[in-house]
């Protein structure tokens, strides 16, 4: 036990003496949270939407008024008026404008005669997000135009009324659980992976191996130290990330208890996974080379930035085994939904089993000799 604590003491002294290491493991996830959270969470504003009015009638004027209303209020787009349809379409293709609405000749007459009136929206569908936003906005406008002047007393169509359980969750908040998990992963990657291999290559472990320390003391000492570093990183990122993203649940004591358990189990699980991966590695280049692959393979399928339900079957299978998935789900429940411990117990059980399984495989593989 004393020898195990000596290994942990040595690792922690190194950790606190190298602030750069602590910063590196925290800065990457925080930068990701701030940049991605702001880049992906916003709505389209001030897009340029061309308008070619070949009708010039009163119904076309209604559309122009609706466009002006959007420009003044939502500011989703700003109309740019064209007289030549071909030029407007060319400008969409060349990226000068983001879309073009064409009101054909006789549009107003067709509206009055209820003779299948149509307007066209030309979009650059190489940019799905922009095109779907414009499509959505134009659909809303046409729906409004199609409303009868006098509303019937009894609705004749089914209406969907949406009940949102939580206040609007900005994308930055949505990203926070993934960022916390990623920070702990970066910590175990550097603190438990790269430094472990570097120490081996520099002969530091050779120094340990000539002492009477047992294999189990060495395994638990190294894993304990790696997990403690990840816990510290997790706690700091949870606090700082919550403040940055404006998540107030972090100040609830009940939530904090659940968060601590989740941080602890995630740290142990990720660290034992890293230990298993590195247990027979000698070359310090290996953890550095695999960092990008592991990051992609673990972070992106976890549902941290996109819903798992949108994945193909094989990526869902990866997500099912990925410890990130359970960590992200657990943090999401606690931080964004305030569900209490009951909802995250399955995540905790998976992370515990994952940690025990990886450690059980890694321990026999760990060599007590060089």
């Amino acid at each position, binding site marked *: 036990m*004393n*020898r195990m*604590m*000596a*290994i942990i*003491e*040595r690792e922690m*002294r*190194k950790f606190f*003496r*190298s602030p750069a290491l602590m910063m590196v493991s925290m800065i990457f996830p925080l930068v990701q949270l701030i940049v991605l959270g702001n880049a992906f969470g916003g709505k389209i504003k001030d897009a340029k939407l061309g308008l070619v009015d070949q009708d010039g009638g009163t119904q076309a004027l209604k559309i122009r008024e609706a466009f002006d209303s959007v420009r003044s209020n939502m500011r989703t787009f700003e109309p740019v008026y064209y007289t030549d349809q071909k030029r407007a379409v060319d400008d969409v293709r060349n990226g000068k404008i983001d879309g073009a609405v064409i009101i054909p000749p006789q549009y107003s007459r067709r509206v009055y005669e209820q003779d299948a009136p149509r307007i066209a929206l030309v979009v650059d569908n190489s940019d799905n997000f922009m095109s779907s936003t414009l499509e959505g906005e134009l659909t809303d406008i046409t729906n409004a135009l199609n409303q009868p002047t006098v509303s019937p007393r009894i609705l004749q169509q089914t209406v969907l009324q949406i009940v949102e359980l939580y206040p609007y969750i900005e994308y930055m908040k949505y990203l926070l659980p993934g960022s916390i998990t990623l920070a702990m992963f970066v910590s175990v990657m550097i603190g438990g992976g790269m430094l472990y291999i*570097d120490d081996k*290559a*520099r*002969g*530091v472990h*050779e*120094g*340990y*191996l*000539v*002492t*009477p*320390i*047992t294999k189990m003391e060495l395994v638990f000492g190294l894993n304990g130290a790696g997990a403690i570093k990840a816990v510290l990183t997790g706690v700091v990122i949870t606090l700082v990330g919550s403040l940055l993203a404006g998540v107030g649940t972090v100040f609830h004591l009940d939530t904090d208890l659940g968060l601590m358990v989740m941080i602890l189990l995630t740290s142990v699980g990720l660290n034992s996974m890293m230990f298993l991966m590195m247990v027979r590695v*000698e*070359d*310090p280049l290996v953890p550095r080379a695999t960092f990008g692959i592991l990051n992609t393979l673990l972070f992106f399928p976890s549902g941290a930035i996109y819903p798992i339900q949108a994945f193909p079957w094989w990526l869902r299978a990866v997500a099912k085994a990925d410890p990130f998935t359970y960590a992200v789900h657990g943090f999401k429940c606690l931080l964004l939904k305030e569900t209490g411990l009951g909802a995250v117990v399955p995540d905790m059980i998976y992370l515990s089993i994952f940690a025990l399984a990886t450690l059980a495989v890694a321990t026999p593989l760990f060599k007590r*000799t*060089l």
Partner: protein
Amino acid sequence: MIADLNTGTEISPNDSDARTTVSNAIEVEHIVKKYGDFTAVDNVSFRVKEGEIFGLLGPNGAGKSTLIRMMTTLIPITAGTARINGHDVQKDPNAARRAIGVIPQALTSDIDLTIEENLIIYAKLYDVPAKKRKAAIDELLELVDLTKWRNAQTKTLSGGMRRRLEIARGLVHSPQIFFLDEPTTGLDPVSRVAVWEMLTNIKSHRQLTILITTHYMDEADRLCDRIAIVDHGKLVALDTPMALKASVPGSNVIEAQFENPPADWEEKLHQLSAVTSVQHEGAGMYRILTGNGSKTTTELVELAVQAGVGVKSLSVQNTTLDDVFVHYTGRQLRDELQKAYSFVMPPRPGM
């Protein structure tokens, strides 16, 4: 006195009871280490007496470090046995580990920790009781002259100071046997001498058996009571430095540099009386081993005058361990494939 290479002990008519009166700190018997088809250590046996300083010499890749690693439980033994302080390193490795202090070839102290912290961590790893820890560290720091640097981070130390720290680290649990794998490699001459003096000083303060590997013959000559020469994984010689020097044919070495010597000059030098070997070392320099230094020197000068060959420099000295080494291993330097390690971590910047 000659060395029995099978048992590693000297056999002398007047010393027949030596094995029973002096106990052995290290006993290595028919030890073998194989990496696949490659035999790194091949059937080596020797014994080191308590309190002795025992040197292991050999060219690069000869198997010295592999031998040390087997004795210090770092790598498994393929065949044979090694007993450290009476403990079989395979059957009771922890008992062997408690009896030994090890200074590996590389500088392995933690550069981010202070000198004292490094020693504290190792004292804990060796289960030195908390009450004795401080006194042991204070004494060692005094012994290696690092007391005033105890709070300095290891990365700020010079190579010589770091080596002294490693020596203190290896002794923090008061071992009976001390293994040093090339402790002065990479140090400047002043630091090397400082390490030698330190080892001699430590030896006078503590009842220690020391096993040391080195490339430096002067180091081995100065420090070691007995020397074993290892080559191609085999023990090729084992005796005291004096006896080893005496075992090389020729008691003197003449080093001479000539101006424009003819092509058959080496052959002519060989024909001088009492000459046992001649080595041409390039640039007109010859190294001649002879049993009679003065006679050979006289004849050599006469030969040069007769042949019209100018003598640029000439020196006569006694046989050194360098000559012993060359005699037993063939060459002074030999680089062989190091099979045990495929990667060596470069030092961190600033080290």
